């Protein structure tokens, strides 16, 4: 792993080669170990080291160029600087470029675990074997993925800024299907500590889902009261976070824009109550379960911030440029999201629903209308009918068309949040929740 001194040396070397007034260097080093399994056996797996140095050069009149190199020899770094500077000199002034930040005081985050950084097959394979054993014992077929990574990141610039951080992360996720292909269950765990992954525990969940999902009934599409499990909620809040940009909101292109305004009015719903009192959504890079970094893309120190506070839109994402124009303090990008929960259990939620559906996870979510943030997607790996407070049987999957803001607006009850890592929305802390009138538009025959 790159040490702080190694990262500092690389950054100093790059800055030393630079001739233009501005130079920012981002260093990324990752070592990871991963195993894929399918058809009840390990398929592919690997161990790898990757590194990338990103160099951004800026002229005095705000022309910028960016290059990336993975070789670390002096000639490679020198070539990378020359390429970034040549691009900057050819480019045109960027009116939205912000002055380089001077030295920052970055917060200390405790998300590096030495055991995770050192874990190899002897740690990962037993967890895979536990999942495989669960599949074989129950005459099911499993496929999944386990991985751990150790990461060193660094940043520096000509104005004296320097940051260095190390963190680890790990995850185990798997799908359990019956041989007939008529039912599918799924479970996931992710943590900065690989010791939190437990194949046997996780397999118990997916096996229950898979065995309970056999003989699915077909229900008509329509509006249903739905209990979303944390994996589904994590995706929805991740997508909601993407829509919290101040620029789009102030320029009439977001669900947070006030309609009917003059194009130059910049009116938004900031400060207004759009959601029920029980909804508080925040970014928390200090959450011990999240593999976050001390700085975000702006290089300002990462901070805890609420986006929705007891139902009120409390902040929008202002990058440094837009904040300077709006006369506001820049805010971090809405990542590392935590949707605060309540003290209910999932069973409490189920018991409180007269008729509704329990949804395990969502799939292939895409924006249908950027302005309203209407999304489409599907359910996957377990949808169950709830009648009179009890799960009464499995039902088919559905396609849905709905805005995640509407989901939170119609939320009536939540559990405590847990960490979920999704491919497109990253790692967030999400509870299960009950939402009403969720719009299923057609049945999906997929299992």
């Amino acid at each position, binding site marked *: 792993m790159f040490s702080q001194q190694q990262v500092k040396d690389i950054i100093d070397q790059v800055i030393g080669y630079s001739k233009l007034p501005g130079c920012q260097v981002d260093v990324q080093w990752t070592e990871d170990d991963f195993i894929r399994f399918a058809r009840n056996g390990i398929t592919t797996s690997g161990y790898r080291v990757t590194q990338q140095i990103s160099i951004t050069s800026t002229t005095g009149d705000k022309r*910028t160029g960016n290059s990336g190199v993975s070789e670390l020899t002096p000639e490679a770094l020198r070539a990378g600087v020359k390429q970034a500077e040549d691009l900057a000199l050819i480019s045109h002034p960027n*009116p939205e470029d912000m002055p380089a930040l001077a030295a920052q005081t970055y917060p200390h985050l405790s998300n590096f675990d030495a055991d995770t950084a050192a874990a190899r097959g002897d740690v990962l394979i037993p967890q895979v074997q536990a999942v495989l054993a669960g599949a074989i014992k129950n005459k099911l077929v499993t496929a999944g993925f386990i991985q751990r990574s150790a990461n060193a990141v660094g940043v520096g610039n000509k104005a004296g800024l320097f940051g260095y951080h190390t963190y680890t992360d790990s995850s185990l996720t798997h799908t359990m299907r019956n041989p007939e*292909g008529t039912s599918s269950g799924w479970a996931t765990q992710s943590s900065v500590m690989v010791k939190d992954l437990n194949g046997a525990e996780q397999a118990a969940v997916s096996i229950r889902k898979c065995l309970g999902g056999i003989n699915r009934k077909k229900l008509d599409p329509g509006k249903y009261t739905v209990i979303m499990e944390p994996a589904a909620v994590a995706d929805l809040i991740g997508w909601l976070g993407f829509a919290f940009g101040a620029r789009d909101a102030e320029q009439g292109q977001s669900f947070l824009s006030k309609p009917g305004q003059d*194009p130059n009015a910049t009116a938004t719903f900031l400060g207004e109550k759009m959601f029920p009192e029980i909804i508080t959504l925040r970014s928390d890079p200090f959450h011990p379960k999240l593999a976050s970094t001390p700085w975000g893309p702006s290089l300002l120190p990462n901070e805890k911030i609420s986006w929705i506070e007891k139902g009120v839109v409390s902040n929008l994402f202002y990058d440094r440029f837009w904040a300077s124009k709006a006369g506001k303090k820049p805010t971090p990008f809405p990542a590392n999201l935590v949707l605060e929960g309540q003290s209910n259990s999932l069973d409490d939620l189920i018991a409180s629903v007269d008729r509704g559906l329990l949804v395990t996870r969502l799939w*292939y979510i895409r924006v249908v209308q950027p302005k309203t943030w209407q999304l489409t997607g599907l359910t996957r790996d377990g949808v169950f009918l709830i009648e009179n407070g009890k799960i009464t049987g499995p039902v088919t999957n559905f396609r849905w068309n709905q805005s995640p803001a509407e989901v939170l607006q119609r939320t009536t009850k939540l559990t405590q949040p847990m960490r979920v890592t999704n491919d497109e929305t990253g790692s967030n802390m999400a509870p299960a929740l009950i939402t009403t009138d969720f719009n299923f538009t057609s049945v999906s025959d*997929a299992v």
Partner: protein
Amino acid sequence: MLLANRLFGEPQPNSTEPTPQLEKLGAVAIAEAKKQGATYADIRIGRYRSQFSGYRLAPQRGSSVTDEVPFVTDQNSFGFGVRVIAKGQWGFAASPLVTAEEIARITREAVTVAKANAAAQATPVQLAPVKAYRDRWTSKFDKDPFAIPMDEKLELIHSATLSIKKDPKVFSAFGALGFQSEDKYFASSEGSSIQQYVVRVYPILNAVAVDFKNGISRTRNYTVEPQTAGWEAIAKANLGENAPRIRAEVLEHLAAPPVKPGKKDLVLLPSHLWLTIHESVGHSTELDRALGYEANYAGTSFLTTEKMGNFSFGSELINVFGDRTNDRGLSTVKYDDDGVLTTRFPIIEKGVFKHYQTIRDQAHLVGETESRGCCYADSWSSVPFQRMPNVWLAPGAATVTPDDLISGVDEGILIEGDGSFSIDQQRYNFQFGGDAFWEIKGGKKRGMLSRVAYQARTPDFWHACDGISGQSYWQQFGAPSDGKGEPGQSNAVSHGCSPSRFRQINVLLTD
């Protein structure tokens, strides 16, 4: 000179031999793997370059004054990955330090991984046979796009975006030129030594219009074919000439009435239909999905293996090929990442599903004796696995024109360009938007519509196809970054087709 440059040299379209330095390094991995007891080994040494430049024109805060924001980036990545089979199990390791010592060390790591994982293997890996090749290949291009000065690129895109933004009613404009190259050397313990160089280009123009009073925002793109080609493809795209059309059409889109939902006939142009082919045909006919290898992430397929050779996928008009040899295809290459010579093969013939996309370690699982050349890894640090070849829909009879298709529609929609897209994990239920929609009424194309999406079930949709235009209307579009696998990988792939007609598809009114 950088090590990567020394190793790969300049593209040599007429050479048939890899550079000696690469062959020497490749031999280190093969020898070390054998020494460690591996029964198979291959190494890929790769240099990847991705250059992206463009302009975003958008109004300043609280003002109608436009900010013109340029961007230029040029990313390079260089390293190697070694794949082995030991104790019947795959192992893989990768490093960015391309030296003989590191190659030997990483090869030992790959063997360690394979041996450890053998404890949990279901069945030993079995590879379909392949010939040994010694070759060097370069994709076709007239002008190296990386050699074109950056100021020429910026000027072209700046002038196109300025043209789009010329009408103050257009809210913002975006234009970009993307260029990607892969310099790759492959050597295997079965005697292959192959060097390949591929260049791809990705141009785009986009316009956004906003009706503040009514809270409506609409887009319009100029969909240019992304392709394996050089700068000449950018010149042919006529960005400057198309910019005024985009400007006019985004405003027309903004004012367009919403669609009336219900069952309608659709005439889909190649700039739109490519994505429907990609999602519903391309992904459903991947063998690794059908077998369950992707069950935990990308999903499985409704085309289970007993359907091969007999399942009625669509109407008799539907003939689809998998092809890594076709001109300008994003996935076109001479040899795949298993070292297999690529081919063209039928996927659907007269509506019947015939063949899956396969690689060496899975062909035998459907009774086939050779791979169809669909193995790919997106980086030197990625494990090669089954990825989509160019999957294209054959044209219809030469006499059929797009106007013929439209004239046969009483009430329908003509769709151009791609929009929102989503499909389930077995590739049954899909929903697609588009970039522009025109009403068809009484056999004539009318004005634009807005808020259109359609939903269908894959076999129902392809059975509803009753007209495909001829070869002269055939065009190829594609995806520069199709995601699949764990850890996630990205694949560039093209899908060609002619304008086609589909009867009575369920059309939705979106927000």
